[in-house]
Structure formats: structure tokens, C-alpha cells
């Protein structure tokens, strides 16, 4: 089984130096991309069926293609890497940046140069201090070696990468809010029309990608679309960094073929549940995805299969709920997070999420009332898609709505017994 993203990781997790990365074939894809040109490179990404690994699964080739050609819209344009990994339960981009920072930088340089961006931003969350230090070193090495700066590899093209360390807010992971943050404004989201590829940073064409997505790019350019598709067990190409947290025997992350079954990830790789615990449910791809149950274990972890089952693959990092942990308490923790991180821009989200969180807190502390169930259902409906600028509120009610469906009795017991039965 090939694991292109993590194959070169060192056993103790130290990062690859530039020399080591080059020895493993690093920066050859950049040379090749410059040689074959924009259309061929983007064609390869589209044929490879690379879909965005930030959670939405948008086809990367399609996104890159939507950048207007330079002759149609001359002037500045920007390339942005979203490394603001803050989705609770998610840690895949961290391991990629810590383990092989040049892999990401090469992906960024390829994306920037073939899309005529001379300025790139790496938007990193504050807490990733180890990744920050390693990226700084790697950027300096790349600059020294001529992979960044003026006239890169004699192409006549220039690129500066600016590492922006954010000051910590979940909202910044949303594309339009991230743009506001980079411009130095309060990071609230705005309309997605026009698309950022038409009008993004300072109103100029801007291409934004997730870390894991970009790490795949050099490999696709090097080895081609057919190879990339052959790695996968599903219709989407490539491998995926899957992760598991919660009370399993061996929590961790693994690079596996896209479309590996949940059962294999949870039982073969994460070792199954700890002794004495049963699986009650799990969030397949971070905090903002719907719960799934034991009956879903044989689903393939890919965008379409998980969506068909009523949830989302999201970031591909699962959070496991066991039978000795209170589902209402877990949902309360999630909704408290979303209420705290709501930027306050849209009324349903600003007003609704704190209400939801306070009802759940009441339930946990024995003050739940029968009519609360209806109020929670009301919020699931009215915070759903289409009522707010961004996906924070719809994402926040995904675990709530699915918990009300799957664990309804547990909520009702909190109300009828005036206490949390797990405490």
C-alpha cells in the first residue's frame, strides 16, 4: 500500500530537511509543472479526482481552473493556504506540516506559479507552534535554494510566501472570513458571490486550498492522474489522512486509501474500543458532522458514501462516543464550542447557539424541561443551510440534529430524571 503523503516521515517525527526532501524526489514536481504548463497541470489534478481535504470536498482542478487567466485580468492575485486547523477532533494538517513541511511548500509554489500568483499567504493557527518553527526553517531553506523569490528555477516567475500566524479563532477557517482576517479586518464571513477566485483578497483573484489538498499536488504532478486514482478504493482519488480520537485502544492517524471502511479504521488501526466500553456512535469527520452509528461501520470513508448516509466525511478525523460517556454532555460540549466561536455576524447563529448551549447545560444539571426538546428541534431547523452567510451554524446543528434522532431517549431521560444519568 502506497502512502505518498507520509512515506518520508521520520520515525520520531522530526521534519525532513530540504536536502532530505530533495533526495526523496522533492521539488521535481515543481520543475515538471513549470515545463508542462498550467492547462496540463490542472488537467492532471482534475483527472486525478483530487477533492479538497478541508472538509467540503470541492474538486481542486475545477477550483484552480476558475482562476481567470492572467491576460484576462492582469494585476495582483493571491494564493492562500488554509492551515487554520481548528475543527475539534482534527489534527491531520498538523502532522503533515510537522513531518514534511517542504511537501506543503512545494504544493504552494506549484499552485502559485501556474496560477500566476506572485504573493502567497500561509494562514497558520497560533497553537501550532512546532509546525510554525518548522515551516519558518523550511521557508528559509526554500528561499535560499531558489524555490522562492525572484525568477524561480529560471522560469521568470516570482513568489513570496508570507507565514501569517493567526491569533486564534475558529471562524478564520471559513474562506471569506479568512480573507477578512488577512486584510486586517474583523474576521466575519461575507457573501460567496462573486467567488474568491474572481474577487478575494483586496478584491483580486484569490485561490485558497487546505494543507492536505496541497500536499497531494506534487505527487499527482510527478506520477500522474492514473497512479493517483489507483491509490483509492473509491471514486475520489488518492489516500486520506484518517484519524481517531476518543476512548479507543490506539487513538492516532493513518494514511490509508481513500474509501477505506470505517470498520477498518476504527478496529484494525485504532484497535477498537477500550476494554469494557461499547461503541455508541461517532462523528465521522470533526465536530460539525452528523453522528453515525454501529450500523454505518461498513461504509467507505469518502465524500459521497458518508454524505449518502446523512453525514459528512468532513476532515476525515473521527471522534468516538462510548457507552460510558454521556451523549447529551458531548453535544453540550460541542454546542458550547460553536456558541463561543460564532462570530456574531448572522442573527440565527449569534442568538441561537448560546440558547442551544444553555438548554443542554440545564439538561446536564437536572433542569431540563419537556418543552426543551421542541426548542432544540426548532434550532436544528432554523440554523440549517441557507440562513447564515457561512457554514458555522449549519455545521453546529449537524451533531445536535443527529443526536436528537439517534439518542432521543437519552435526552428524555435527562429531563424525566432531573439529572444526568451518566454522572
Amino acid at each position, binding site marked *: 500500500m502506497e502512502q505518498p503523503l507520509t512515506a518520508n516521515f521520520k520515525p520520531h517525527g522530526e521534519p525532513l530537511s530540504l536536502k532530505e526532501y530533495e533526495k526523496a524526489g522533492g521539488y521535481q514536481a515543481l520543475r515538471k509543472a513549470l515545463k508542462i504548463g498550467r492547462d496540463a497541470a490542472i488537467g492532471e489534478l482534475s483527472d486525478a479526482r483530487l477533492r479538497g481535504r478541508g472538509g467540503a470536498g470541492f474538486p481542486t482542478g475545477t477550483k484552480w481552473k476558475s482562476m481567470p487567466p492572467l491576460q484576462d485580468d492582469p494585476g495582483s492575485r493571491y494564493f492562500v493556504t488554509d492551515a487554520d486547523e481548528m475543527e475539534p477532533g482534527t489534527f491531520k494538517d498538523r502532522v503533515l506540516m510537522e513531518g514534511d513541511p517542504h511537501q506543503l511548500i512545494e504544493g504552494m509554489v506549484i499552485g502559485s506559479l501556474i496560477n500566476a500568483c506572485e504573493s502567497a499567504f500561509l494562514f497558520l493557527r*497560533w*497553537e501550532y507552534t512546532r509546525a510554525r518553527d518548522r515551516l519558518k526553517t523550511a521557508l528559509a531553506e526554500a528561499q535560499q535554494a531558489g524555490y522562492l523569490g525572484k525568477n524561480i528555477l529560471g522560469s521568470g516567475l516570482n513568489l513570496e510566501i508570507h507565514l501569517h500566524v493567526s491569533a486564534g479563532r475558529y471562524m478564520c477557517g471559513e474562506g471569506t472570513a479568512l480573507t477578512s482576517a488577512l486584510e*486586517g479586518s474583523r474576521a466575519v464571513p461575507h457573501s460567496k458571490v462573486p467567488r474568491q477566485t474572481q474577487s478575494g483578497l483586496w478584491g483580486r483573484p484569490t485561490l485558497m486550498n487546505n494543507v492536505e489538498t496541497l500536499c497531494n499536488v506534487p505527487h499527482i504532478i510527478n506520477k500522474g492522474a492514473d497512479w493517483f486514482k489507483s491509490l483509492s478504493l473509491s471514486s475520489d482519488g488518492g489516500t486520506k489522512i484518517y484519524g481517531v*480520537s476518543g476512548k479507543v485502544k490506539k487513538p492516532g492517524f493513518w494514511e490509508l486509501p481513500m474509501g477505506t471502511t470505517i470498520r477498518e479504521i476504527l478496529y484494525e488501526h485504532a484497535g477498537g474500543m477500550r476494554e469494557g466500553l461499547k461503541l455508541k456512535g461517532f*462523528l465521522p469527520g470533526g465536530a460539525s458532522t452528523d453522528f453515525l452509528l454501529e450500523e454505518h461501520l461498513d461504509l467507505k470513508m469518502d465524500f459521497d458514501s458518508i454524505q449518502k448516509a446523512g453525514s459528512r466525511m468532513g476532515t476525515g478525523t473521527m471522534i468516538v462516543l462510548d457507552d460510558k*460517556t454521556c451523549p447529551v454532555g458531548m453535544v453540550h*460540549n460541542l454546542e458550547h*464550542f460553536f456558541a463561543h466561536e460564532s462570530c456574531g455576524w448572522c442573527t440565527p447563529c449569534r442568538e441561537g447557539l448560546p440558547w442551544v448551549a444553555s438548554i443542554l447545560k440545564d439538561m446536564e444539571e437536572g433542569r431540563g424541561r419537556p418543552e426543551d426538546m421542541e426548542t432544540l428541534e426548532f434550532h436544528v431547523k432554523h440554523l440549517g443551510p441557507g440562513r447564515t452567510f457561512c457554514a458555522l451554524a449549519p455545521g453546529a446543528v449537524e451533531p445536535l440534529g443527529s443526536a436528537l434522532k439517534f439518542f432521543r431517549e437519552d435526552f428524555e431521560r435527562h429531563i424525566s430524571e432531573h439529572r444526568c444519568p451518566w454522572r
Partner: protein
Amino acid sequence: MLTDAMKKQIQEEVERSGTRKAGCIEAIQIVQQDLGWISDEVLVEIAEFLDMTPAELEGVASFYNHIYRKPVGKHRIMICASVSCWIMGYEKLLDHICRRLGIQMGQTTADGMFTLLPIQCLGVCEQAPALMIDEELYTHLDENAFDKILEKYREGA
């Protein structure tokens, strides 16, 4: 007060950021690194230096978890309050930390050594529960492990 050294550092960041305003997060972080927190007076000075209105900069400063608009202790203990850590024993760990330090979340110890703050998912969910002290990450925590870490910082003082 903004020193010349701070201004020089901010100017460098501003030049890489695209516009003066776009460097405001960097500017705040540079100043906070030195002064520990961002007072109203300092906020106004930074805003002037960046050609922003104080209100505009306050809108940014009040938005982020790592910008302090009130004084904090010498060390910030940021305990991950997100879902994986919650499942793995966050509440018990938090209780212990509050008892050990004699403070509640958001408070600073009387000697000014530690401020206890909640933090969103630290991205080390497979090593939960976790916390950060300043820029250092600590994982696989329990009460004993925390006590040992605390000892280290107390000795360092």
C-alpha cells in the same frame, strides 16, 4: 508605550502583509510579546501607527483568543476544552487544576504567576487530554502529570 524597536518590527511585518492594516494581528502580537497585554492606551497607539481607527482595531483585537485586553499572569495555562479532551477527562483535570492553583477559569493566581484560560481544540486529539502553557504543549495529562509540570514552572520562577 510603543518603543522604537517595536515600531521597527511592526514596520517589517507591515511591508510583508500587503497593507498597513493587514499587519495589525502581527503588530498586536509583537507588542503583546513585550508588554504581556494590550491596554486601551497601547491599542490607540498601534492603531495610529497603522493608520487605523482605534474602533477598527478594537474590533479585531476583541475577536481573537490570544489577544489579551486585560493583564494576564507570567504564564498562561490554556486547557483544551474541546470534544476529544472532554471525552478523555477534561472536567476532572480542570477541577484538579483549579484546586491546585486556587483559581477559577479566567482568573490569575495571587502571585501573578499563572492565568488559567480555556482554549479550543489544540489539534492533538489522539493525545488527549492536552493543554498549553505559553507556547509549550503538554499531552496525555492526568493530575500527577500536571503537578509535575507545575513544579517545573514554580522552580523556574
